[in-house]
């Protein structure tokens, strides 16, 4: 068995430093940006505009905070907000499940995408595929499993 030590060390050092450099250049600026967003409350304006779209998917208005947190920062953040909302009874278990369904497939979008783009992925395809897959599954489950439908007429009280 032939082990090429020279080539191994070469790959190790060249690629290794490239890896360390790439991740460094993503993680540190990203954390700074996320810190700014968190501290300056830059998401508040976004929330109102998103409410309508979210209701179409089957989400209640209260779910938006955990969705935004998870989408931007990561599943731990989204889950943390979700836990708080469910404990304080603002969200029921169905909503929690739908949020987890969406976030499970599509969280920390900035961080994850940046990471893969740095090693060569196409950002547009990556983000859109993930996003639409998450949207589709969440909508399907909301509609066909939990039977959440947009009410078009007034509820029938005679039944």
């Amino acid at each position, binding site marked *: 068995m032939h082990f090429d030590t020279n080539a191994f060390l070469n790959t190790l050092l060249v*690629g290794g430093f490239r890896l360390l450099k790439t991740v460094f250049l993503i993680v540190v600026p990203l954390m700074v940006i996320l*810190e700014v967003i968190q*501290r300056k409350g830059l998401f508040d304006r976004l929330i109102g505009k998103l409410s309508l779209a979210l209701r179409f998917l089957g989400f209640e208005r209260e779910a938006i905070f955990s969705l935004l947190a998870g989408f931007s920062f990561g599943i731990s953040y989204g889950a943390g907000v979700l836990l708080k909302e469910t404990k304080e009874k603002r969200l029921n278990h169905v909503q929690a499940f739908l949020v987890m369904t969406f976030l499970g*497939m599509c969280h920390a979008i900035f961080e994850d995408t940046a990471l*893969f783009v740095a090693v060569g992925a*196409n950002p547009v395809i990556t983000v859109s595929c993930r996003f639409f897959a998450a949207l589709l599954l969440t909508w399907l489950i909301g509609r066909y499993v939990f039977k959440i439908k947009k009410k078009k007429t007034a509820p029938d009280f005679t039944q």
Partner: protein
Amino acid sequence: MISTTVQVIESEGWRNIFSAGIIRGLITYGVLCKVMVPVYVVVTFLKFTPVLDTIAGWCAPAMRWFGLPGDAALVLVLGNFVNLYAAIAVITSLKVSLLLTDAHVTILAIMLGISHSQIMETAIVRQMQINAWVVLGMRLIMSLLIGFLVHFFIIST
């Protein structure tokens, strides 16, 4: 440790926000290096032995469904069992050896984006009193399904 450090720098001033962000970044980076460096060293080492090629050979038939080479199985396994940074370490190692193209990486990015860090993330879902196995199953199935669909309809390799 990260949260207590950040709490100390309480003020809203830009300089403090900036410092807090940098510290958070550096600490996070340090944690990540502890995963990436061992993974990278081991994978690169194995690449120069017959081990990786053998494993790649076993996985190649399955990986072909996603338009990926057999080595990509290692990326998917590490991405799911450990985290994305381990997966990135493997991708970097494979790219240096010219085994992965950008198209491959895009497909992997989508598949891993949908399903990664399952051990840690399933623990998080558990806390929610949601059935973690259902969420896990959904993510795995969707990861494979979307990987196949993306390869079939969008990215050919």
